[in-house]
């Protein structure tokens, strides 16, 4: 399972980051600036993926960036999922005015382009990692809400819910014991998809300098620094871009894999 591999690799890198990284990500070495990666002539094996304009080790910075990316991915996606799922479940289960209200809100939300909304939000909250996470939650809860609402409505039509009513299960039991487990596979794939999105949003906001403090290593920040020296040292941009692509594709693959592993219908 490719997705799981990528995820575990990211998790491992993030956890053992300070031990794994060959250098301090902030350590400057101006004599060794713009060193190329190891396969290019003139590389220093001490700096496997080369160094940036201040002579900081690219590999170490990428490893520390993984930590930020994974943290944002997991925290933001989980919180977004919790908010969206709760609202979606309630709307789908109760219907009526609750549903109308929620659907209206989702429509309005979706009409507003995400990039602009996130910039306004960061402007309001102030730059920083917490702002990135809040922005993701505020923007993307609709993604969960829509799908969960629709799926809950479908599940409510199923015979097993009807029979749960006839044997006298309470609403809460029906919602959490009967319906929730049935939308879980769907939820898991949404969650991993959201992690991929969160990685991208974090990268965007740190690229434009609205995420964590500018000297901290983030993938988006690395890209932005690389963008400045793209003609002298293109690898500065290549590695973080590759990291983002691998992470996003990995999360998507993980979602597909988990979904087919958890879904008893798909498993057959």
């Amino acid at each position, binding site marked *: 399972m490719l997705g799981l591999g990528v995820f575990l690799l990211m998790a491992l890198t993030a956890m053992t980051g300070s031990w794994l990284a060959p250098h301090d990500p902030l350590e400057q070495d101006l004599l060794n600036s713009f060193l190329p990666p190891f396969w290019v002539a003139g590389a220093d094996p001490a700096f496997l993926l080369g160094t940036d304009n201040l002579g900081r080790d690219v590999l170490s910075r990428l490893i520390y960036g993984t930590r930020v990316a994974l943290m944002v991915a997991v925290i933001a996606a989980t919180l977004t999922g919790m908010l969206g799922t709760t609202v979606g479940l309630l709307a789908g289960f109760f219907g009526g005015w609750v549903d109308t209200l929620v659907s209206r809100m989702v429509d309005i939300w979706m009409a507003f*382009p*995400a*990039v*602009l909304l996130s910039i*306004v939000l960061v402007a*309001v909250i102030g730059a920083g990692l917490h702002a990135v996470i809040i922005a993701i939650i505020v923007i993307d809860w609709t993604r969960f809400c829509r799908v969960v609402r629709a799926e809950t409505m479908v599940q409510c039509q199923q015979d097993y819910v009807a029979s749960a009513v006839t044997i006298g299960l309470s609403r809460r039991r029906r919602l959490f014991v009967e319906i929730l487990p049935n939308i879980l596979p769907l939820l898991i794939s949404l969650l991993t998809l959201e992690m991929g999105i969160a990685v991208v949003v974090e990268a965007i906001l740190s690229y*434009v300098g609205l995420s964590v403090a500018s000297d901290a290593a983030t993938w988006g920040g690395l890209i932005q620094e690389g*963008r400045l020296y*793209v003609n002298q040292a293109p690898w500065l941009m290549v590695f973080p*871009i590759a990291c983002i692509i691998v992470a996003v594709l990995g999360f998507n693959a993980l979602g597909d894999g988990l979904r087919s592993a958890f879904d008893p219908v798909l498993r057959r």
Partner: protein
Amino acid sequence: MTAASLLRRLLLSVPTLFGVLIINFVLLRVVPGDPIAMMIGPGATPEDIQNLRQIYGLDKSIYQQFLLYLGDFLSGDLGTSISMRQDVVELIVGRLPVTLELALVAIAISLVGIVGLGITASIWKGRWPEVLIDVFSGFVQAVPDFLWALLFILIFGVLWASMPIFGRMDLAVEFDPLTQFYLFESLFRGDLVVFRSILMHILLPALSLALPLIAIGARLLKSSINESMAQDYVQLARVKGFSHFRIVVSQAFPNALIPTVTLTGVQMTFLIGGTVLVERIFGYPGLGNMAIDAVINRDLPLIQGIVLTFAVMFIVLNILIDMTYAFLNPRLRHD
């Protein structure tokens, strides 16, 4: 769409605009941190701060501030930028054409791409052109949108250094513009050297904006055309003796446009939103680039003005999409 229904549509967008005004106002009033403190140095006295607060109306109640804000908006006054110390409307008017030009070129590229690829895939359905186009759009959609701009920089700026990757035109080029629509103005004046330089600069950012839209739109158009191809009127066209090519292009395609326009319309708003980031990446001096600077500097009046401008752009775009839809679908045209 008749004049009356256009008017109705315009009136309908008034509440939307009002909602944006309220949200815009409220959001930026709950900002923690004092923007005034940011704009003056640490040596300022409390009196200085008080004076500035008065100038910007920050000393009044929220309610009064909103009425003031609304009145100013209606009289076309969006205040003065805190960081640039310039009239916000002036700043926006200076930058808006830049973004509009970029967005228009991007939309033009997407339309050509969507129609070209969608029709090609439908004509050679089940053969290699369709397979190729499917692979292409799957690949484009797999990579996050924002990375395409960066990948283009690496590909066309470094690997095969054939295109400029920063700014709006070569510094060496002499151009004394009357308007901010450099591309259109240089073409209109017949100044081809300038036009070429500006076109080369606009191409990569526009392409980065267009590519994701093309991938989604082409796939959508293709499946809509294929759906139309199964309809009875297509069979009749075949029996009339029309060629496959002509049936796809002149019978199925006009019908397939109707669902495609609705769905890609939403994507177009994303394209407009995407200019913010793409302008930043390519150092393109448009509205979006200014927006990010405004956020970094916490320049409230400027942020408000820009957000409002974008909101108006979205409203206008939506009206245009509705009009196109009504134009394409005769069932909607007469009522």
